[in-house]
């Protein structure tokens, strides 16, 4: 079974530039999550999708961050414009969303973003 795929793995940009991350969840997983993990901290949920609808985006800085999940499969997370404090690893995770083990999240390798 293929895992959660993310690209790129690393990205370096200057502040005020734009950047986009891509995530392909495990096939059949209805729920998709984007997390921000700042160095030395635990992951913080940015947005959660159920199929192609947003379940929770309460911690997404909507003035600069946006995310979409077209057709309920792949998802992109965009930052425009980036700030220095956006430097972090961005993790994508997916889960079945139903059943006894439906809440187990499977994580991708993450994208490490450095904003200079």
């Amino acid at each position: 079974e293929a895992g959660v795929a993310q690209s790129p793995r690393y990205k370096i940009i200057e502040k005020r530039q734009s950047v986009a991350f891509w995530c392909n969840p495990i096939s059949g997983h209805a729920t998709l999550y984007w997390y921000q993990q700042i160095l030395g901290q635990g992951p913080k949920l940015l947005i959660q999708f159920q199929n192609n609808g947003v379940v929770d985006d309460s911690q997404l800085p909507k003035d600069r961050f946006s995310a979409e999940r077209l057709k309920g499969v792949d998802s992109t997370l965009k930052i425009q414009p980036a700030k220095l404090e956006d430097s972090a690893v961005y993790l994508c995770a997916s889960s079945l969303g139903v059943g006894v083990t439906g809440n187990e999240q499977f994580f991708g390798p993450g994208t490490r973003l450095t904003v200079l």
Partner: protein
Amino acid sequence: AQTVTQSQPEMSVQEAETVTLSCTYDTSESDYYLFWYKQPPSRQMILVIRQEAYKQQNATENRFSVNFQKAAKSFSLKISDSQLGDAAMYFCAYLGAGNQFYFGTGTSLTVIP
């Protein structure tokens, strides 16, 4: 919002020995899930063990077991017969009715050969 606290930023254990990682959480809910995730240096997080709050029996997965104390809101992870491959960041996580995961700040585990 629920909070998850891991009070040990770093821990070390001798290979083949046992180590316990601590986690406490704050919630007013009665039904929830607790998880321990492992994040090796490659950064891909994997699930170690899961506990449903309504189950009194502590979860066990091979060398990994938990001590779940619901009244004390404590959820510690015990790793027995530690192996070099156990070295990683370990995160405790809470999932409640709001269906949002809350992660602790993590414990970095070093395994000494």
